[in-house]
């Protein structure tokens, strides 16, 4: 046997599960899963790795769309496979009967339970929706394709 330097895979999944709090202030209060939401952003907005939290600035607006976006279905807890921890919402993001006439190309996934802190931003070809439905399908929830992975 030999020792091998590594980030423990269990730690990666536990980060996603909120087990570790290495800072000086633990602000978690509940014991249930947090509520995750998904907001759409205009193609002219600036949402990227530097985004720290949900903001209405640059968010789409239009008939049928509620500021803050939709609540993601989160029925599958984060897990790991191999050395990768991963998590994917368990249903598509669906914005039903909306009219969004200004083109948008980004969805921000964020934690509405924890002060709307940002999780990830995902871009796609610019879209508009007219009295229709916008569906953002989730990838397969595995270590290769999951929406959010820590490798």
């Amino acid at each position, binding site marked *: 046997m030999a020792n091998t330097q590594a980030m423990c895979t269990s730690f990666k999944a536990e980060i996603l599960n909120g087990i570790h709090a290495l800072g000086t202030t633990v602000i978690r209060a509940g014991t249930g899963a947090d509520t995750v939401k998904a907001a759409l952003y205009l193609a002219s907005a600036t949402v990227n790795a530097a985004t720290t939290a949900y903001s209405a600035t640059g968010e789409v607006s239009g008939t049928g769309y509620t500021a803050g976006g939709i609540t993601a279905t989160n029925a599958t807890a984060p897990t790991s496979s191999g050395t990768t921890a991963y998590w994917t919402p368990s249903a598509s993001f669906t914005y039903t009967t909306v009219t969004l006439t200004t083109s948008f190309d980004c969805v921000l996934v964020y934690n509405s339970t924890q002060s709307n802190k940002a999780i990830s931003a995902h871009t*796609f070809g610019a879209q508009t929706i007219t009295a*229709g439905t916008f569906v953002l399908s989730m*990838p397969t929830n595995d270590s290769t394709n999951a929406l959010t992975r820590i*490798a």
Partner: protein
Amino acid sequence: MIVTTTKGEMDDSLLEKREGSVDNDNENTTWVEYWLAGDVVHRSAHVRLKKSIVSQTEIGNF
């Protein structure tokens, strides 16, 4: 088929249907539009993301 439009619920036989798709490394997207008298009265889109977000972890050396 009844379609929700900016003019209300309409039978699709009264509308011109246009469809399209985009398939690249990032996404597979399909969309459908219904037109009436030169105006888009319905547009829906379905985006299937292909790329996930990966965060690489590293540990430091002593």
